[in-house]
């Protein structure tokens, strides 16, 4: 069959469209100076976290009581702690732990939250009411206490901190995803595939999930920041990583007894946490701007 005339084509390039779509995003991301700085910092953190420990020349856990609380020097860049351990080395080794806490807790909270959020937004009704009430309960429940309770039940360890912080971040994901699901669900293409006879699973995983991804990603980067802060707060309350793990929050918390005498014990881990959290906040912000068409100028 012939339809009148062929329609004029819009663009003539035959490039890979997937690449094109992401190129645009990347371009906008790169335009955001802060996001670039944040992104670079994150890359540095990740690289250091992975390869850094192989390049340190000291044992992060080797104690040397005779050299405790030494101030920063050429030998010990960030000084030594109350056991005479090298703080610089410990910070490098702690990087991956901090990252683990950030990533895994967000992954945990994200997976559960996204799942609940989609279910809630997609099916609505009683299910939605129930899930959202449960989320309200978790939100209303003082976060740090929830974490405290979880860590108390399961014992203090990195895994349990991750679980605690992860659960703590479930409602944030669930709410955001529910919101976006509700708006995506209203879009006509969802009805169109429904009208084609698509199953709920297909609609959820193929059509809704990919389209609620960008707020999830933004939320995830920002949540990593929050997670690291929460985890360090738990460490401060003595419920974080087990000694001698060089987790930054734990280092900070241990070091506070020496604050007057040897401020470098709290200064360096503190700065590292700030930088780490900052990097993710900045990057998350940039990502949000880049993903938000409204900000497109």
């Amino acid at each position, binding site marked *: 069959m012939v339809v009148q005339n*062929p*329609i004029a084509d*819009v663009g003539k390039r035959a490039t890979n*469209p997937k690449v094109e779509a992401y190129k645009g995003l990347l371009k906008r991301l790169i335009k955001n100076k802060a996001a670039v700085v944040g992104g670079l910092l994150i890359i540095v953190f990740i690289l250091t976290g992975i390869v850094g420990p192989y390049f340190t020349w000291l044992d992060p856990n080797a104690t040397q009581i005779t050299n405790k609380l030494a101030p920063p020097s050429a030998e010990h860049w960030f000084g030594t702690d109350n056991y005479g351990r090298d703080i610089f080395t410990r910070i490098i080794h702690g990087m991956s732990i901090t990252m683990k806490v950030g990533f895994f807790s967000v992954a945990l909270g994200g997976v559960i939250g996204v799942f609940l959020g989609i279910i809630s937004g997609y099916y609505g009704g009683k299910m939605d009411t129930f899930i959202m009430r449960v989320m309200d309960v978790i939100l209303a429940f003082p976060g740090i206490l929830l974490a405290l309770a979880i860590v108390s039940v399961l014992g203090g360890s990195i895994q349990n901190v991750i679980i605690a912080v992860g659960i703590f971040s479930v409602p944030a994901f669930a709410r955001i995803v529910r919101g976006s699901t509700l708006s995506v669900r209203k879009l006509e*293409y969802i009805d169109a595939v429904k009208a*084609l*006879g*698509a199953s709920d699973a297909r609609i959820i995983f193929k059509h809704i999930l990919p389209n609620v991804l960008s707020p999830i990603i933004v939320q995830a980067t920002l949540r990593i920041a929050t997670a690291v802060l929460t985890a360090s707060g738990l460490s401060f309350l003595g419920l974080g990583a087990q000694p001698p793990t060089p987790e930054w929050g734990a280092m900070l918390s241990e070091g506070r007894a020496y604050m007057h005498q040897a401020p470098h014990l709290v200064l360096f881990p503190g700065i590292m946490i700030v930088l780490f959290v900052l990097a993710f906040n900045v990057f998350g912000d940039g990502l949000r701007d880049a993903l938000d068409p409204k900000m497109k100028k």
Partner: protein
Amino acid sequence: MAKKEMLKVEGLKQYFPIKGGLMGRTINHVKAVDDISFTIYEGETVSIVGESGCGKSTTGRSILRLEEPTDGSVVFNGEELTTLSKREMRKHRKDLQIIFQDPYASINPRQTVADVLDEAMTIQKILPAKQRRKRIIELLETVGLNEYQADRYPHEFSGGQRQRIGIARALSVNPKLIICDEAVSALDVSIQAQVLNLLEELQEQYQLTYLFISHDLGVVRHISDRVIVMYLGKIVEIGDKHSIFENAKHPYTKALLSAIPVPDPTREKKHIVLTGDVPSPIDPPAGCRFHTRCPFAQDICKKETPVLGTYAAMADGHEAACHFVEEIESGTLQAKEFEETVFG
């Protein structure tokens, strides 16, 4: 008449609960569609017109069970749809397709055109996977797109082209009936005409039946065989397009037709202007729903709901739901405060 009944809707109701009050109980309903019946025969185009919120889209969605109807029956091709299980319904969806208004929202932005069509065929198991690519290209050509556009994403197409993709998707499963819900309303006039022509050609070629939903009476007149006029969830008039456009009987239909500006500066510019706004479907007026704005309204209109009927001077199959069709026609009933306005 030897016309085959394609779709028979009877007593269809769609009420949406309004939650509220203490503990989020249902305190009221939006009576979006309130007891409507009509039949569509094979190969024809029936349009639903009416103002925003009168329940046009809801009617379409209920037929497709995108919204579970509150009440009523929908018989498609001899089979009752409302009682099918979800699973069985999915199989039947092959025959009933829908094209939406918004060319930007009606395609998943993360699928290429080929993905979209392939998925449709996968779901309904139309063809073995290997032969689908060929079919996709055929479909694209059918709707006036090119093969090289198959692997592009929706954002690379214009609105009119996207609407064509939507049409291709609907066609891909070889449907018998397509519901076009404002399928051309969002398009510019010049593009709208392209798509309308395409729909007409496809209908001819595949003996498609259309349920065409639109508030644009120009488009409706152009494309339809028969027209249903809805007001606040009810059908107020139904008939073939000549009856409706040239011999409207219901005061609402008349007002509607008269309110539309005509693109002809030489014509006399008189319009019946209805006073007031469309009432809310939550608490629709009792009796005839139009009585609050009707210049002919009498006491009985406030109490009794008129039923569709064919009166004198009305063609076969032309029905109107008004207590006073004949009185208005004969001029024995005069309009109160009947306002006529001139725009220019």
